[in-house]
């Protein structure tokens, strides 16, 4: 789309910060993203403030001072402290900074796919002020040295906040516990062997008990590997027609069922990553009814695509859990509507053409997701599944609550993390113009409605759509 055309002419290196974050500077000359001055006050004038945690949905001005929310009321733009930059956001949604519970930033070890700087820049461009980084890096985040590196790189990059998730087991091998206590001291917010489910029920029990000791939730990628047999897509009519080796929906739900029982035994907080089947949603609904500390998330792509997207062997539609049937998608949407599902999370999973420009069964699982998450999620509002406030909650205060993260609301004194969304802007996804280092999206060429246009972390603008705010 035209409004972003300028990006393509800007070399990636020139979009990086060239000085410390203390000084005021523009990041690139094309009028794209920029940093605000750290010492400047920022006023967002006249937007529709949607803050579900405080039950707010009304037009107001928002003043950010010293990296935090200072005031939020109608008409303060008239009486502002000196040194305040005013940005006109009339007609736009002003929401708490969006929080992504599930992303793969690939650093350390796979920087050719993504690194923490490119990944958090992409996150910022998608409206996310904080992302949780899954531990399946090379080496995995299974000890504090790796956690420290991730935290340091994220701080140096200066885009979205990064909350590392530590491995459950050493090397994510599912054999012995990783050094969860030390990783907690270094900043992990949860443990998971994401991508490699904990198959051994005894290890899972001990991991839940140990994680609970340190106040950490356990996040599981639910897939019984014996049942899934490495299947490259969902088992069903589409896989039968295409002749692709497939995994049944029960490979996911049977592990969700087992895990819920172990959760009940241990009392640990348990979070199901990327639920994708109707049965899994039903199991989580029932667990919540039992009063268990069980939560779950869903991805934008499972909410908007089905296994039909794999029919033409498009490796960009290959992900794990796989895209499911229309009936599953309907159940996921119902789970969002009735509150069973706690968060929309991207599972942003960058891969290069080395992993994707190959035969379908050989291709890596996963797709990038930061920059398409908001428009895809907005489809649920347009479809009448969610109110704007419910949608914002699923991207802010509710994910914050799942992992006990700061932010997610705009009350006075809260973190100055804010996302501004234009819910109606009409654009078309051009993968080469996205900020991720990788281009593996099945949405290339898709028309989208809505997008994040301004992303603010700790009172500083880290992303602004060109022309609109510069």
């Amino acid at each position, binding site marked *: 789309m035209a409004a972003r055309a300028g990006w393509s002419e800007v070399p990636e290196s020139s979009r990086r910060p060239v000085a410390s974050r203390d000084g005021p500077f523009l990041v690139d000359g094309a009028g794209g993203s920029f940093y605000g001055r750290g010492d400047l006050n920022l006023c967002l004038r006249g937007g529709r403030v949607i803050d579900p945690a405080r039950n707010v949905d009304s037009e107001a001005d928002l003043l950010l001072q010293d990296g935090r929310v200072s005031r939020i009321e109608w008409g303060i733009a008239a009486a502002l402290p000196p040194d305040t930059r005013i940005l006109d956001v009339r007609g736009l949604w002003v929401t708490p900074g969006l929080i992504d519970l599930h992303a793969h930033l690939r650093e350390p070890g796979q920087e050719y796919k993504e690194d923490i700087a490119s990944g958090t820049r992409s996150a910022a461009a998608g409206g996310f002020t904080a992302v949780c980084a899954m531990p399946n890096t090379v080496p995995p985040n299974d000890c504090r040295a790796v956690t420290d590196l991730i935290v340091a790189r994220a701080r140096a990059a200066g885009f979205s906040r990064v909350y590392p998730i530590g491995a459950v087991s050493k090397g994510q091998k599912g054999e012995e516990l990783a050094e969860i206590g030390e990783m907690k001291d270094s900043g992990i917010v949860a443990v998971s062997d994401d991508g490699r489910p904990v198959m051994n029920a005894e290890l899972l029990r001990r991991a839940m008990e140990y994680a609970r000791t340190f106040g950490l939730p356990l996040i599981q990628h639910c897939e019984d590997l014996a049942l899934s047999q490495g299947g490259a897509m969902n088992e069903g009519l589409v896989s*039968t027609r295409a002749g692709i080796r497939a995994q049944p929906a029960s490979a996911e739900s049977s592990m969700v069922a087992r895990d819920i029982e172990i959760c009940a035994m241990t009392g640990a907080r348990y979070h199901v990553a990327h639920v994708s089947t109707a049965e899994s949603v039903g199991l989580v609904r029932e667990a919540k009814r039992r009063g268990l500390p069980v939560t779950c998330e869903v991805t934008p792509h499972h909410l908007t695509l089905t296994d039909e997207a794999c029919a033409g062997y498009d490796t960009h539609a290959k992900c794990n859990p796989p895209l499911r049937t229309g009936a599953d998608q309907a159940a996921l949407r119902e789970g969002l509507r009735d509150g069973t599902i706690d968060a929309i999370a991207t599972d942003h999973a960058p891969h290069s053409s080395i992993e994707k420009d190959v035969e379908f069964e050989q291709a890596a699982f996963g797709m990038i997701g930061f920059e398409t998450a908001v428009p895809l999620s907005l489809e649920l509002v347009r479809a009448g599944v969610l109110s704007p406030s419910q949608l914002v909650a699923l991207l802010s205060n509710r994910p914050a609550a799942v992992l006990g993260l700061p932010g997610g609301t705009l009350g006075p004194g809260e973190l100055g993390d804010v996302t501004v969304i234009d819910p109606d802007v009409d654009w078309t996804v051009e993968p080469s113009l996205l900020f991720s280092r990788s281009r593996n999206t099945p949405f290339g060429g898709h028309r989208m409605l809505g997008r994040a246009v301004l992303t603010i972390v700790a009172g500083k603008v880290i992303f602004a759509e060109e022309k609109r705010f510069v």
Partner: protein
Amino acid sequence: MNSFPHKHLLGTERLSARDLNTVLDLGDRFGEIAKRPIKKVPTLRGKTVVNLFLEASTRTRTSFEIAAKRLSADAINISGASSSTMKGETLVDTARNIDAMSPDVVVLRHAQAGAAHLLSQRIRAAVVNGGDGAHEHPTQALLDCSTIRAHKGRIAGLVVAICGDIAHSRVARSNIFALATLGAKVRVAGPRTLLPVGLSELGVAVYDRIEPALEGADVVMMLRIQKERFGAPLFPNTREYSRYFGLNERRLALAAPDAIVMHPGPINRGVEIDPAVIEGPRAVILDQVARGVAIRMAVLYLLAGGGGESGVE
């Protein structure tokens, strides 16, 4: 002149009855060449056909090679063992290198579903799917249809029972699509471990024992167990499999009195089919092979012919 509106032959799923009949009719005419003393016509002289066989094959590769040579095309065979994919090159790179040498047709045999689709998106040459994983093997289905039509005079309305390892069979899929399009009543049968989900939605009748599927069938098509394609045990052993799912003369008696017995090969004698049936009067298995050459000549002609004379009446 172009009576076949497809650049590639990737499967039978998207072929119309008209497309299928075009190939079958032309195949009948090309079959006549095999009866001549000089089995060669100049139709594709100057055309290049590359047989890129990255998975083991004897019958299909030989059949395509003979078909190309009988049409005077230059046929080059590349097999998995000798190819650069063994040295770590990707399929796309291998194909682009071959394409740079300007072949007219590339026939691909590959162990993974969708490989021919991928190739067709990346090269200029016409792509013929010579079998991709458990997806499709369209020329096999076409030669099977040709065989059925020759022996039965028609396809519409016939009851065709496809028995055995349906789950891992590209032959089953291509035949299900083609036979359904041509109006046959298709039944599939095998133990539930070898039946893929959703089959009934493809418009076939599904049986988990072979006896009811054989009942009154006009055509019986037996499939080999593709052990190389599955990891988990799907039945106890070949002895028990043969006992409950093998075709013997007693079971064949359930079919129509004039039923024909087909098998795409390779056969595992005594497993899915009893030697007495193979050697019996109903078996048309070698006729399938003979017709395979003619059908592949038709396919190569339609994709590489560029509108020239076919060399047959």
